[in-house]
């Protein structure tokens, strides 16, 4: 009986090396979850594979084939620069999420390569904001090279230095210098350096690339703050929320979900959650401060302000 077990072990390791060479997700011998069949008494065990991090959101994990890849390249895209708040937020959340999932003694950091034109248009990263968002400041390195090839060199050097768990490469739109070959090369580099490369395309169209998956991030309304006794307070801006449209998943079996998934990011516990349909909100209707007769005349404007519905003619914003 021992030889059989030995042969079985050898076969398994052979299969493992082949799978790793082809970059396919590794399947242990555990039974495949039969999610379609809801038979009672049947234990559905989530697919456990070591280079995937589950988001904990049923729909998203299933769509991405088990969750986030631990090493390899993925892309997060925002349709227009106005939504860069949401895309940057999502990228940073994913980075923070991965950082908390890596073994502590590895002590690897996050490397963010900023893109100068995006920074001019939508603002620089703010240390206090990053800390509020859940990132550890002493494990974050930031660079803002002037040219794209410098950025690529930095990203590649970061990957080969094995000092980073997540590298976020910010790209403005669809630059020609970043075509399929560069994408391919970065993807391979990321895969064999056990590091997740997040391509953050700000205000760009959908473009093919050798990414494992590609998401389009767009803003979603935030959750509500909770009072000490648990009731949410209406009108307050709680934890950040993003709505994702999954555009491409390279190795997944199941079909892509049609409509977007909404995620809430709990910066304190560094967890993604589904936005719970809130309990009846407890909030005193914020009455206007001066119970006097409506808004006083604005000092520098012409006549009484019309009802808010109509579009007012404003002089040009400076």
């Amino acid at each position, binding site marked *: 009986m021992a030889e059989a077990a030995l042969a079985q072990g050898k076969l398994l390791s052979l299969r493992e090396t082949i799978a790793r060479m082809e970059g396919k997700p590794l399947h242990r011998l555990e039974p495949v979850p039969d999610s379609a069949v809801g038979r009672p008494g049947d234990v559905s065990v989530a697919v456990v594979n070591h280079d995937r991090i589950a988001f904990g959101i049923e729909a998203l994990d299933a769509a991405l084939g088990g969750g986030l890849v631990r090493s390899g390249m993925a892309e997060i895209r925002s349709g227009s620069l106005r939504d860069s*708040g949401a895309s940057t937020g999502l990228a940073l959340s994913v980075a923070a999420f991965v950082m908390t999932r890596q073994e502590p003694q590895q002590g690897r950091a996050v490397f963010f390569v900023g893109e100068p034109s995006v920074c001019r248009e939508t603002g620089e990263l703010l240390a206090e904001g990053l800390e509020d968002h859940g990132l550890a400041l002493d494990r974050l390195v930031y660079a803002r090279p002037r040219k794209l090839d410098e950025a690529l060199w930095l990203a590649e050097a970061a990957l080969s230095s*094995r000092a980073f768990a997540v590298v976020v490469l910010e790209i403005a739109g669809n630059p020609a210098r970043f075509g399929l070959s560069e994408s391919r090369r970065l993807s391979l580099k990321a895969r064999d350096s056990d590091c997740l490369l997040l391509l953050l395309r700000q205000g760009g169209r959908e473009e093919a690339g050798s990414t494992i998956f590609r998401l389009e991030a767009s803003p979603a309304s935030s959750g509500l703050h909770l009072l000490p006794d648990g009731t949410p307070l209406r009108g307050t801006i709680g934890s950040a929320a993003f709505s994702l449209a999954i555009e491409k998943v390279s190795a997944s079996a199941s079909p892509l979900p049609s409509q977007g998934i909404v995620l809430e990011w709990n910066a304190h516990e560094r967890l993604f959650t589904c936005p719970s349909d809130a309990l009846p909100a407890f909030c005193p209707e914020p009455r206007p401060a001066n119970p006097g007769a409506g808004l006083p005349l604005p000092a520098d404007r012409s006549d009484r302000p019309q009802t808010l519905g109509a579009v007012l003619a404003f002089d040009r914003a400076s």
Partner: protein
Amino acid sequence: MRLLALDEKALALGLKRHQGLAEAKAMCPQLDAVAADAAADLRFLEALADWCSRYTPLAARDGTDGLFLDITGCSHLFGGEENLLSDLIFRLEAMGLAVGGAISHAPGLSWAAARYRMHQPLESRIIRPDTAGAVLSPLPVSALRLEAETVPLLMKAGLRTIGDLMCLPRAPLARRFGSHLIKRLDQALGREDEPISPRLPVAGLSLERRLAEPVAREEDLLFMAGELSRGLAPMLEERGLGGRLFELSLFRVDGAVFHVHAGSSRPLRDPARMEALFAGRFTALQDDIDAGYGFETLRLSVSHAEPLESRQMDLARPSRSTEGLADFIDQASARFGAGCLMMPVTRESHLPERASAFVHAQEVLSAADHAMRSSQPYRPARPIRLFRYPERVEAVAEVPEGPPVQFRWRRILHRVVKAEGPERIAGEWWLDGEEALTRDYFRIEDEAGRRYWLFREGLYDREPGVPRWFLHGLFA
């Protein structure tokens, strides 16, 4: 605050040592006072001692304001004792120092003569053993290097000069003022010898390699740099040091010399990494170094070293992450210059633009501390992206401090669905003056779910001018 030392002009004005600074300034307002830095004076004196090694290897520092040079057997190189003394004094005075010097057979005697016969002609400052007694007797008692409290006691007893002491019997003196007085007296008269403990200079750290035939190609230079690093490593090892700044000097055949500097964020002495550093530098400078006929000598020296205790690497798996990160930072800064990699740091200030900053990675790695923001769960939130210059927007809001109901940014109208605030931050009056305007910050979310950070500069009721609205940052 007391005066420690005075120049001639100050003494002429009647100021005294140990006089209060405030009192001295009151007496002459145009007094120019410089903070005394004992450590710096000491370092200067030691540098002077090293400089004196040109006259004799046995140079030692004496207290805080003197030097002992043991010139037995060296005076003939300078044409006799007198020439040596005049040359030494001339050079020191050229440096701007007020100097007194004397030569004799006993250190105590020279000490006394140097200090108390400063303005006498040079010949009288070289004292033969037989004239020692005559030279010493007119000098005051303090010329014997006594303890501070013995001198006033002697004064009270009317014993002012060394001559008075010499003619008194030794037993009552010893009983009243201690044996130290007698010892110093004998040392001055040369009856008891006094050893001098010289200072040894610290040799510099460098390694030189002369080549049989000149080398021009970059790979050869790199190879030679590796060889020199491997030679330097053991020298660093035994001193327990690690190099922070290395200098590779390339001596060309026709005499021109090129210096290539390479710095590292952590002290290191591993030859491979030293070589890697220079590899990065070479690629960056390849067009500046014109090899010409090739380089015949290379010298690698450590210009700045720091203690590096040889840490026992852990057995399981080398935790190479901090090393890896440091390597990556060195590599990147070698290629793109030191400022290219930065790390976020928070500072203690209420104004957002002053509370956060990006600092060069190398500095942050060495300095460990940065301000901890208040850690209550509910502290005021900050956006992830902040505009360097807040952008002007047109907003409609309730007076005096209501949140904006709608605002137009870059000609796009945003209707506000949810708002939080105001968070009122007043100007930092000690930097921007008492009239700096107050800002009321609001976190707002528009109907599309985008979250912005707006602020109104100026208050309706209390501050002059019409308040204006700005967009300062984007939330996640």
